[in-house]
């Protein structure tokens, strides 16, 4: 066992191998035969002072999975990271972390990583070489190329990208900082309207009314965690208020599903709507500001109604509400709305925000958000490549060959470059074309920093020995410089770490910190240095530039459908496609995992006569793709949509050949950015069919009150869901009869009596949970956290097809309305996990007491006692028990992925039942600690993985027997209800009903 662990490429001296050994240990342990084998205890040579075997050590670092730059805490055991959580001190994400960020762990231990420097042989194959050799080769090539050097870098703003900049400059080469979704239209619009191409921060928390013009601010646009936090504050019935969210877009994405009203406007007509609203506002306050009145005059609600398909009356009402609620907030710039007129849209929205007086209130400039060079720069580089003006290209932290639409011809241009070098950790599409692979360290393996916004200096530190034979990109540059000399000679820092430190010394100076040691130590502890963000920079409307304009975007291609593509909520631009978690945890909107799909509106589906799973062929002049249909009520009937992120031709075993890449359908961009909505598609039925790897059963509640809601008025009056129903004249809603209540009471006494025996004597805590559906956005962060914390195996596509995914915590997405055409459709999200019932039906049916009730009120599951009769799962009304049909424990974590396993949690073997444990390992850990310190456990001292991760803090965990605990208070909340309460299983989870705004007049 121990040897299995150390057999990995990790330096065995770094492990106390006895401990790390959960891999397959589950299997062994469960069959109880681990006694037979000889185990080795391999001691450290030198005990690292910050590691105590058996206890977690936390390091602060920074997430590099996207450009937001969130702070993370890395939980390490015996010197290897086992979980990523948000850094509570970090101003961007305040202790939360999204699925993509948490999955960085699977990037670190990814089997598809490049194991060391490699060079391409004449025959095209790669051959491992030494670093010295690699450095020498690159240095030589740079020498030859002179200034004909280009660098494409996706590195976030920070010491490294500065170094890279200087380094490239020293060579006389050109640096293209590339970000897949670079928000060019927003910056252009800001330049036009406010004369500054800065990106603002949006303070959703303050907003009382939010209109999003296709900006998916909860998931794939801007700083999702920060915005989700704000949205929860504004929309989560805090202080009895719910800020209305209106979502205007042809398709509902996660943000749309959380909207109180969806305006399914015609593709590309956002600007018309925004301008019309502004026009109403301006005209209603007597044509002030005058400059705008003229500019807006043309854009009447009537015109907008015509363009968008939204009734003029609605638009006017919208405008008035928007003006009335102050401050309000309008958002634009979502990738899915990035069409030919995208800049106009952002400009229009800027004007709208301006006239509504939101600038400086909810729209705060001055954060100095980092920006890349935009698509134009990359296109320019491509041209030079074609022209043969580039001798050596170095690609860092970017995969343009995949993320650029095929029509741009970037790949061909790239191929033309004489010598192509990649520092990618994985053999992605770009690296696959390169001649030299210089795999850099993973962010968790290296020293580095990021400056995600003004006042935030976020630090990264190595938290484990490198998993493979890689180098920090900084050191590659430095060593190449020393080798090549010449103009590069001045980059003579002994190591990148030293370089970084020197820069931070300078920083300490700037910040007026005299004691660098303390400064540095503090920064390491807190994950960086966080200064007050500068006051919102005053921006004024550059009137002469504010040419409000709207032109209906022209679409290329033929066919009856407009083609819309959008970033995959889990895989983003495709960078997540090599991480099993992100592939298996279903897309929060469609609930489909592992493969591509094409969304078709119900009406269109009827017209085309297609059902879920029927494979459609979509073709444009640029290309053709095939994908199964998902009939999606949240999309216009004249639009079909596909997620980005799949259809990789390289990028490791998990990603390769999985799904299709809709970028192949897009036309070559003409302007400053890639228009993701730019073409029509012709749709053809292939007559073939495939089952969707969907985790959804029946997505309707059938009146079973699983995800309850309550009208705002009723909630403000403090009514219970029950009372609200009755008030609304829905008396038929199940009410407990006297007899039922009697029975419940009887049960309670039974319980009391039954808890007088053996372990059940005395006062024990009663662990419980509260989940506020008014705040839950269905974003999946909790699900990923659960996978990470509890060693949940990913079972793969064909098992998901059999409904065998192991999501201890799943998010059910129920549709409301939308059953007959015209009726508005909306979604309800409800996180469903083991309810830890007091009268759990699963317990008495287990023949061997593997499922039983613990003294502290948990519904225990003893894996090693379980014989696998599966009766408990049958008898669970919530269907939250999961069975190991195969040896998932041996399949799910191909080395070195198994190093991510949490040593505190048994890996379940084949043939046993498993389910949510309320993170019992954390409970026991806290109890052990409290016992050592002779004190009771404090409320909030620890929490479950899901509650820790939830960006909108909708999950609260604690001891309900302690009246002062948060969960105890929430359990008393009038909005509280228990799912399927009438079954009298008495769940330990209290759901707080979602608060609904009054339906539209």
């Amino acid at each position: 066992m121990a040897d299995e662990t150390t057999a990995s490429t990790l330096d065995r001296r770094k492990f106390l191998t006895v401990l790390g050994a959960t891999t397959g240990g589950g299997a062994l342990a469960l069959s109880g035969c681990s006694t037979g084998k000889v185990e080795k205890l391999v001691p450290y040579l030198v005990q690292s002072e910050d590691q105590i075997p058996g206890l977690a050590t936390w390091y602060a670092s920074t997430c590099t999975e996207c450009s937001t730059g969130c702070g993370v805490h890395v939980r390490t055991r015996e010197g290897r990271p086992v979980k990523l959580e948000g850094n509570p001190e970090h101003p961007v994400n305040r202790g939360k972390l999204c699925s993509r960020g948490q999955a960085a762990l699977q990037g670190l231990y990814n089997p598809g990583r490049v194991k060391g420097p490699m060079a391409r042989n004449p025959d095209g194959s790669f051959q491992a070489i030494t670093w010295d050799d690699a450095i020498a080769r690159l240095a030589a090539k740079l020498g030859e190329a002179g200034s004909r050097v280009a660098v494409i870098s996706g590195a976030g703003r920070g010491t490294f990208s500065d170094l890279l900049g200087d380094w490239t400059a020293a060579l006389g080469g050109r640096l293209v900082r590339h970000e897949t979704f670079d928000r060019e239209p927003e910056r252009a619009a800001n330049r036009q309207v406010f004369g500054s191409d800065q990106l603002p921060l949006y303070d959703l928390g303050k907003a009382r009314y939010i209109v999003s013009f296709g900006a998916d601010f909860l998931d794939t646009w801007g700083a999702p965690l920060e915005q989700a936090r704000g949205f929860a504050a504004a929309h989560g019935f805090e202080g009895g208020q719910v800020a209305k969210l209106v979502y205007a877009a042809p398709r509902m994405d996660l943000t749309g599903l959380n909207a109180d009203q969806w305006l399914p406007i015609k593709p590309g007509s956002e600007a018309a709507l925004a301008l019309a609203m502004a026009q109403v506002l301006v005209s209603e306050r007597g044509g002030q500001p005058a400059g705008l009145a003229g500019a807006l005059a043309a854009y009447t609600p009537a015109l907008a109604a015509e363009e968008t398909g939204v009734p003029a009356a609605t638009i006017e009402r919208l405008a008035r509400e928007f003006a009335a609620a102050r401050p309000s907030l309008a958002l634009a710039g979502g990738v899915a709305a990035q069409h030919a007129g995208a800049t106009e849209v952002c400009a229009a929205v800027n004007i709208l925000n301006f006239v509504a007086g939101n600038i400086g209130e909810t729209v705060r400039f001055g954060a100095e958000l980092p920006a890349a060079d935009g698509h134009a720069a990359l296109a320019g580089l491509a041209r030079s490549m074609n022209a043969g003006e580039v001798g050596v290209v170095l690609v860092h932290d970017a995969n343009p060959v995949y993320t650029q639409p095929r029509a741009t011809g970037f790949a061909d241009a790239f191929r033309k470059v004489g010598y192509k070098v990649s520092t990618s950790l994985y053999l992605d599409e770009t690296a696959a074309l390169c001649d030299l692979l210089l795999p850099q360290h993973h962010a968790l393996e290296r020293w580095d920093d990021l400056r995600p916004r003004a006042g935030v200096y976020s630090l990264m530190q190595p938290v484990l020995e490198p998993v493979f034979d890689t180098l920090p990109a900084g050191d590659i540059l430095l060593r190449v410089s020393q080798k090549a000399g010449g103009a590069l000679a001045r980059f003579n820092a002994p190591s990148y770490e030293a370089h970084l430190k020197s820069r931070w010394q300078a920083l300490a100076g700037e910040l007026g910190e005299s004691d660098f040691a303390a400064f540095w130590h503090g920064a390491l502890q807190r994950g960086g240095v966080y200064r007050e963000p500068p006051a919102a920079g005053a921006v004024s409307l550059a009137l002469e530039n504010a040419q409000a304009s709207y032109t209906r975007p022209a679409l290329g291609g033929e066919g009856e459908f407009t083609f819309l593509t959008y970033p995959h909520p889990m895989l983003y631009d495709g960078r997540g496609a090599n991480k099993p978690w992100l592939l298996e945890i279903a897309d929060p909107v469609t609930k489909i995992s592992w493969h591509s799909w094409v969304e078709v509106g119900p009406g269109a589906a009827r017209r085309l006569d297609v059902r879920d799973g029927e494979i459609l062929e979509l073709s444009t002049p640029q290309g053709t793709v095939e994908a199964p249909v998902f009939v999606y009520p949240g999309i216009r009937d004249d639009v079909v949509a596909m997620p980005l992120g799949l259809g990789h031709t390289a990028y490791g075993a998990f990603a390769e050949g999985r799904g299709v890449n809709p970028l192949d359908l897009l036309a070559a961009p003409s302007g400053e950015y890639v228009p993701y909505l730019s073409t029509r598609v012709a749709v053809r039925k292939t007559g073939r069919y495939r089952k969707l790897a969907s985790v959804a059963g029946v997505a309707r509640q059938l009146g079973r009150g699983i995800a309850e809601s309550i009208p705002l008025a009723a909630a403000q009056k403090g009514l219970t869901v029950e009372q609200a129903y009755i008030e609304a004249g829905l008396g038929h809603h199940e009410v407990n009869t006297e007899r039922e209540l009697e029975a419940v009471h009887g049960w309670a006494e039974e319980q009391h009596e039954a808890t007088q025996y053996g372990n059940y004597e005395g006062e024990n805590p009663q662990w419980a949970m509260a989940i506020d559906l008014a705040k839950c956005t269905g974003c999946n962060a909790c699900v990923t956290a659960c996978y990470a914390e509890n060693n949940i195996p990913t079972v793969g596509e064909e098992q998901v097809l059999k409904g065998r995914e192991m999501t201890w915590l799943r998010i059910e997405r129920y549709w409301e309305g939308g059953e007959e055409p015209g009726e508005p459709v909306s979604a309800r999200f409800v996180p469903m996990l083991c309810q830890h019932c007091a009268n759990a039906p699963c317990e008495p049916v287990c023949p061997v007491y593997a499922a039983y009730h613990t003294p502290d009120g948990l519904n225990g599951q003893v894996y090693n006692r379980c014989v696998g009769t599966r009766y408990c799962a049958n008898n669970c009304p919530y269907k939250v028990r999961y069975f190991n049909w195969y040896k998932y424990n041996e399949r799910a974590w191909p080395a070195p992925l198994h190093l991510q396993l949490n040593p505190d949690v048994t890996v379940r073997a084949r043939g046993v039942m498993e389910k949510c444990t309320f993170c019992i390992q954390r409970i026991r850990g806290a109890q052990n600690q409290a016992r050592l310190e002779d004190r009771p456990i404090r409320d909030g001292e620890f929490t479950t993985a899901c509650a820790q991760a939830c960006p909108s803090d909708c999950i609260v965990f604690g001891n309900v027997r302690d009246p002062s605990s948060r969960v105890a208070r929430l359990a008393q909340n009038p909005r509280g209800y228990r799912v399927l309460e009438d079954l009298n299983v008495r769940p330990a989870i209290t759901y707080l009903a979602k608060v609904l705004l009054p339906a539209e007049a």
Partner: protein
Amino acid sequence: MALPLRSRRVPGLLASFVHVDAAADAIRALRARGHRNLVVYTAAPNHEIEEALDHSVSPVRLVTLIGGLTGCAAGFGMTLWMSYDWPVLVGGKPIGSIPPYVVIAFELTILLGALSTVAAVALFSVLMGKRGIAYDPKFSDDQIGVFVPAGGDQAGAVEQMLRSAGAVEVRREAA
């Protein structure tokens, strides 16, 4: 070939009958003459013969009763004891809850009842059965056998009587 084998052979006369009433008559006559420990062979139970022999009721029933009661007690005993030996709370039900345990007790009642019954028969009729009595395969087919343990002196008289009663065959069995 009948088990149990090889034991001292009992001297006497073995008569075979075809007619059931003849056999019954013979039995009555013999018992009237004071022959008590007759052995009568039939292929199937026959009430005429039973009447003639006029046995007391088999004690098997007592054993069955005891077995059954033991099973019942064992059932409740085991379930309750094991529940309280390591009390585990499931589904908010009392640690030792009688209703479900009735099932176990019932099954064990039946089981031990049945097993003890069979054991009793084995004990009384096979193990405790008489040894070394002459036997003839015909008896398991279509004839009735009557064995009269009788010494040489009185053998003649008995044989005479059996034949007169209608025995189709009478065999003398020497020791």
